[in-house]
C-alpha cells in the first residue's frame, strides 16, 4: 500500500461530512424536487403522479407572471443601485485617512440588524402619511409617494430599504481598493489623467473582478429575495392575502404554495423554473464578464 494511496483514503475521511451533506441536502433534494414536480402532494394524501399538469398550471397561473415581474423589477433596480452606491461610498472612504474605521462601522451596522426588525422600522419610516422619509423629502419641497401602499411605489420603497445594507458590499470594495498598486495611479497621473481618468482607467479595471463577483452574488440573492418583503406585507398580520400583490416576489409565492396551500408538487415545479431562470441569468453574466472584466496579466 503506497503512501499516496493511504493519504488519499484519509482525504475521503476529511471530505466525508461534505460528501454526505451533498447527497442528503443538495443533490438528493434537487433530484427529488424534480420528481416531486410531476406529482400532486398535499402531505395528507399520498403523492399522485399528474404528469406535466403542474407545469401547465404554472403557465396558466397569473400569479406566476406577477411574481416574476416583481422579482425582475426589484433585481433590475436593486443590483445596479447597490453596486454604484457601494462603489461611490468605497471610493470616498478609501480617500479618508482618518476615522475610516468609524465610518466603516457605521455603514456596516445595518447589515447586523435582523431583517424582520428592519421591516418593522421601515414600515413606519416609509409610511406615506406620517413617515420620516417623506418628512425629509418635504424639506426639499418634494411631495413623497405612498411607499407602503401604492402598488407603483412598493418596490421602489423596498429597493430604498435594501440600500440601507449597502455596507456589506462597501467593505468588500474597500479591501479590493487597498489592493490596487499605487504606482499605477502614479503612471496615470504622469499621463495627465485627472480624478475621473484615474477612476476609469485604473481603479475600475483593477477592481473589476471583485465588482463582477458582487454583481453575480447580488443578482442571485435578489432573484430569491424573501425576508424583508414577507415580513412587511405577508403572514398572519396581512389584512388579506392580497395587500402585497406588488411585493409578491417569486420565492414568497413559492413559500405560500408550499407551506400555505401545501401544494408540494406545484411548489417544486415553481422551484425548478426559478432554478432554470437563475442558471440562464448567471450564464449570461458569465459571458458578459469575459468582455468586461480585466484580470491581471490578461491582454486588454
Amino acid at each position: 500500500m503506497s503512501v499516496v494511496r493511504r493519504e488519499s483514503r484519509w482525504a475521503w475521511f476529511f471530505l466525508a461530512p461534505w460528501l454526505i451533506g451533498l447527497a442528503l441536502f443538495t443533490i438528493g433534494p434537487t433530484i427529488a424536487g424534480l420528481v416531486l414536480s410531476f406529482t400532486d402532494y398535499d402531505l395528507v394524501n399520498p403523492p399522485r403522479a399528474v404528469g406535466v399538469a403542474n407545469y401547465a398550471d404554472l403557465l396558466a397561473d397569473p400569479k406566476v407572471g406577477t411574481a416574476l415581474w416583481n422579482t425582475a423589477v426589484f433585481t433590475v433596480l436593486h443590483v445596479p443601485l447597490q453596486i454604484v452606491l457601494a462603489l461611490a461610498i468605497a471610493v470616498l472612504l478609501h480617500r479618508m485617512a482618518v476615522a475610516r474605521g468609524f465610518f466603516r462601522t457605521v455603514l456596516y451596522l445595518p447589515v447586523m440588524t435582523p431583517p424582520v426588525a428592519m421591516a418593522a422600522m421601515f414600515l413606519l419610516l416609509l409610511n406615506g402619511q406620517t413617515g420620516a422619509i417623506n418628512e425629509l423629502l418635504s424639506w426639499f419641497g418634494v411631495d413623497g409617494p405612498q411607499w407602503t401602499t401604492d402598488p407603483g411605489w412598493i418596490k421602489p420603497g423596498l429597493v430604498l430599504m435594501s440600500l440601507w445594507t449597502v455596507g456589506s458590499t462597501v467593505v468588500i470594495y474597500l479591501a479590493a481598493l487597498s489592493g490596487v498598486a499605487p504606482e499605477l495611479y502614479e503612471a496615470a497621473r504622469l499621463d495627465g489623467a485627472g480624478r475621473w481618468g484615474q477612476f476609469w482607467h485604473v481603479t475600475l479595471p483593477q477592481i473589476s473582478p471583485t465588482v463582477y463577483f458582487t454583481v453575480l452574488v447580488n443578482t442571485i440573492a435578489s432573484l430569491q429575495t424573501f425576508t424583508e418583503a414577507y415580513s412587511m406585507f405577508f403572514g398572519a398580520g396581512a389584512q388579506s392575502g392580497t395587500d402585497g400583490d406588488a411585493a409578491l416576489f417569486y420565492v414568497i409565492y413559492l413559500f405560500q404554495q408550499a407551506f400555505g396551500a401545501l401544494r408540494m408538487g406545484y411548489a417544486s415545479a415553481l422551484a425548478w423554473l426559478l432554478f432554470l431562470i437563475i442558471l440562464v441569468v448567471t450564464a449570461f453574466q458569465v459571458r458578459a464578464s469575459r468582455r468586461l472584466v480585466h484580470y491581471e496579466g490578461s491582454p486588454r
Partner: protein
Amino acid sequence: MRRRPFTVLALLVLAALFLFPFLWLVSASLKPRERVFDNSLWPDPFTPANFSEVWQAVPLPLWLLNSLLVGLAAALAVTLSSALVAFGFAYFRFRSRNLLFGLVLGTMMLPAAVTMVPVYLEWDWLGLGNTQVPLWAQNLFGSAFFVFLLRQFFLSQSREVFEAARVDGASFPRLFTSIALPLVRPGLIVVFVFELKNSWTELMKPLIYLRDPDLFTVPRGLKAVLDRFGQGGEAQWELVLAASTIATVPMIVVFLLAQRYFLSGLTTQRR
C-alpha cells in the same frame, strides 16, 4: 487634497442617514403609542414601560435563549465541519480534487429555494419537522462558502509545518486538531461569528419548521409580534419597536466586539 472637505461632508451626511433609523428606532420604542409617529428623536414623555409590557406579552426571554442555543449549535457545527472539509481540500492531493472543489463552488450558486421543499419533507419524514433540529443540523455537513474561506486560510500556511509534523509521526486527525486548527484560529472565529449572525437573523427556516411558539427564535418571534401588534394587528407599534430593539441590540454588541473578524471575513481576497 483640495477636495477633502467635500469627502468629509459627504461621509458625514451618509453616516447620519445610516445611523438615523437606529436612533429613530430606539427613541420611538420609548414613546407612548400616540407619539410613535411623530418622528422626533427625543422620546417625550419617556416611556420605558413599553419594554416591560412587551416582555410580559410575549416570551421574549425564551426566544432569546432559543436563538442563542440554535445559533451556537449552528456556528459550532459549521465551523468544525467546514474546517475538516477545507483541510481535506487544502492538504491532500488526490485525483478528483479540482473537480470536487469545483462542485463546492457550484453548490454556492444553487438557489436555496430549489431544495426548500424536499429538504422539509426529509425532516418531516424523520419526525423532526416541528423541532429546532433542522435549523442547525445541516451545518454538521459543512457549508460551501465557509469551506472555500477556510481553504484559503489553510493554503496560506506554509506546507512545511504540516510535513514536519507528519515526519514526526503525527496521525492525520492529530495533525488536524493540534497543528492545523490552531494555525487558522482567526479564520475559525470569522466563520463562527458569521454563522452566529446568519442564524440570528434567519427568518425563512424558522417560518418553515417552527410551529410551536415556545420553540421560536428571535426573528420568528419578532414576526409574530409584528403580525399581532403591527400591520393589521392591534396597531401597538411601540411594542413592536421595543421588541425590534431587543432583537437588534445583541448582534450590534457582538459586531462591535468582533468587528475585526467580520470585516476580514468579508474581505478575504478571492482568487
